[in-house]
């Protein structure tokens, strides 16, 4: 009994939770750094002030759409067209937040509102795996989100001030996020049906990526592949 109360106390200790969140989130930060730097450099070349660049990273916090926005800005696009493009690029988060929602029951609305701000491809993948495999909770997940957020904002501002002086491709850092996604994908292969879904999603995503410009291939391929997986489960094909 003493042990359980002590571990429960430790579980809620803020410093301990921050440490656990940062431990889970460091691969994201590593991966964000070169991308944030590159974003800062490009945005600065497009004529934005470091303060404006940091503001976009703070308010939007969505890498690919920020790159697109900056290139549209330098091409003279209208505010409305940039905002609409951003909406389309970031619609995929609907799916990620839907998957995470089940783990955020009975969490206060204010905290879920803050949590939602930090849902990215990367934080989603890391947190979902933790939720599935350990006694992860929303506080630790929030630390993951906000640590990644900080890395993104800082790296884009650093990039704005002098990113061009940092050599590209140092130590293969550009591969950090791909390697992270590969490993998290491995964690998700929890049976033959999941492996089949992964193969279908990958094949469809590549086909759509080659056929349609933009990144809508992510949503289309994921929805189709997950539906095939769910139908197969209902019909007891490959169940294990």
């Amino acid at each position, binding site marked *: 009994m003493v042990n359980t109360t002590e571990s429960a106390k430790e579980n809620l200790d803020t410093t301990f939770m921050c440490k656990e969140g940062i431990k889970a989130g460091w691969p994201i930060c590593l991966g964000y750094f070169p991308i944030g730097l590159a974003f800062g450099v490009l945005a600065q070349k497009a004529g934005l002030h470091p*303060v*404006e660049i940091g*503001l976009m990273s703070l*308010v*939007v916090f969505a890498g690919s*759409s*920020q790159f697109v*926005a900056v290139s549209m800005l330098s091409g003279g696009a209208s*505010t409305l067209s*940039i*905002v*609409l493009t*951003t*909406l389309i690029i*970031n*619609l*995929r988060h609907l*799916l990620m*937040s*839907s*998957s995470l*929602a*089940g783990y955020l029951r009975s969490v206060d609305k204010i905290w*879920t509102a803050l949590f*939602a*701000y930090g*849902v990215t*491809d990367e934080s989603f*993948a890391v947190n*979902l795996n933790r939720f599935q495999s350990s006694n992860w909770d929303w506080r630790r997940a929030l630390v993951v989100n906000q640590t990644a957020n900080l890395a993104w904002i800082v790296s884009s501002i650093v990039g704005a001030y002098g990113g061009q002086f940092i050599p590209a*491709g140092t*130590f*293969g850092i550009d*591969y*950090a996020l*791909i*390697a*992270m996604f590969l*490993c*998290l*994908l491995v964690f998700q292969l929890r049976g033959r*049906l*999941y492996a089949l879904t*992964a193969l279908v*999603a990958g094949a*469809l*995503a*590549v086909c759509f*990526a*080659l056929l349609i410009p933009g990144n809508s*291939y*992510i949503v289309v*391929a*994921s929805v189709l*592949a*997950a*539906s095939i*997986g*769910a139908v197969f*489960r209902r019909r007891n094909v490959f169940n294990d």
Partner: protein
Amino acid sequence: MIKSEYLLLVLGMGLVTYIPRWVPIFFLSRRQLPRWFAEWLDFIPVAILSALVFPELISGGSPRYLDLLRPQFIVAVPTFVFALKTRSLGGTVVTGMLLFWLAGKFM
């Protein structure tokens, strides 16, 4: 200082990015999901991860074209095996980076 038009742009982008992140959490975390929907959601993570990573590995350029010999893909094979064998996230990230760095030197 920051122009009001730019401020409007950033706020607009922030809003349309935030809404899809927030709406499902707000509505779905407070109710029991229908069984078919929960089953479908169970396949979403594996599908999304695969859909995110595969095009990065074997297609590139703008407009995109298929390229099975990209270093990203060649390095992905041993990185994937490493992840399968060790199930270590940190180890996989460092191994992947190292292999990609070496691939850049020799390819």
